[in-house]
């Protein structure tokens, strides 16, 4: 059975919402299990690192501007750390290297 586009969208939006909502209903108290707490504490670092590399390198048309953006991003984050600054530095790097390659 195939529903129309609007009904399909509604079904999929609700599914995605439920995936995000259920953990908030299930874990209403602070978890006491040390392993689970540690695991959830480490999740963001691992997830974001996995999503950043190698995706940042292949995100642009030219692999070298991606590599340059990665290096500039790492340096900017290490020395300055400001979110907006790091993001803009990466964009500017891709833009500038794009002029030369």
């Amino acid at each position: 059975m195939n529903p129309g586009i609007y009904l399909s969208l509604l079904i999929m939006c609700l599914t995605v919402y439920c995936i995000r909502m259920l953990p908030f209903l299930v874990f209403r108290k602070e978890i006491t299990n040390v392993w689970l707490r540690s695991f959830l504490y480490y999740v963001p670092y691992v997830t974001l690192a996995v999503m950043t590399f190698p995706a940042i390198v292949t995100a642009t048309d030219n692999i070298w501007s991606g590599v340059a953006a990665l290096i500039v991003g790492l340096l900017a984050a290490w020395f300055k750390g400001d979110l907006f600054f790091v993001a803009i530095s990466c964009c500017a790097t891709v833009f500038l290297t794009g002029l030369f390659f």
Partner: protein
Amino acid sequence: MTETDKKTKENTEANISAGPHTLSWFARGLRDGIPICMGYFAVSFALGITARGIGMNALQAGLMSMGMVASAGEFAAIVLISSHAGVIEMISTCIVVNLRYFLMSCSLSQKLSPDLPFFHRFLLPYCITDEIFGLSSAVEGYLDPCYSYGMTIISVAGWTSGTVLGVLLGNIMPAFAVNALSVSLYGMFLAIIIPPSRKDRFIAGLVVISMTASGLFSLLPVLSTISGGFKVIILTLLIAGAAAFIHPIDEQKQ
């Protein structure tokens, strides 16, 4: 002072000055949402072009982006719609592609104060995207959901308008501009994970291992056929699971 004491103290202070404190978190969210908005605009513009390709109109694509707020999830949704998939296939594909949000919600549920009004547990899930989750979990102590709401308002505006314009304008935006904007999101991820790595060598090691493993996954045969969403889930379970075993956080705080 233990971590719990610190959290309780911060929370008490937050309650005393609830009004302006919450408002400033909201304002900070709007500010931090700007780079997210820019990155989203570039990605969702491409999404809009794809949606137009299978015959979706601007209203449908806009509703999809506003309702789902998920990049890979929406690409999957477009494929499902164009292939006239059935309800079961739609639901099961959505669950698999978006499963990493489940892990993120589990993690963020631990950043909420026990005194937080219950309705936030229905609003905050809408805000769980890779970027907003990353920033929300980077906050010291308990999370004030208004910070996430601020980021969400501005970034969903960018995400939805990007999708709609992608459908309407198609290929008008020059490639170099899309290119430059597309790394904005990764720059933000670096800004979230690198400063804590500077302070904590274990986290630094974790970041290096995660990136290396992720690189290997996209190079090695067999492993490179695994979809992006699944790769994130598998590596997160393995690496964060092992890290929690090797280096439990309470031990380190004492």
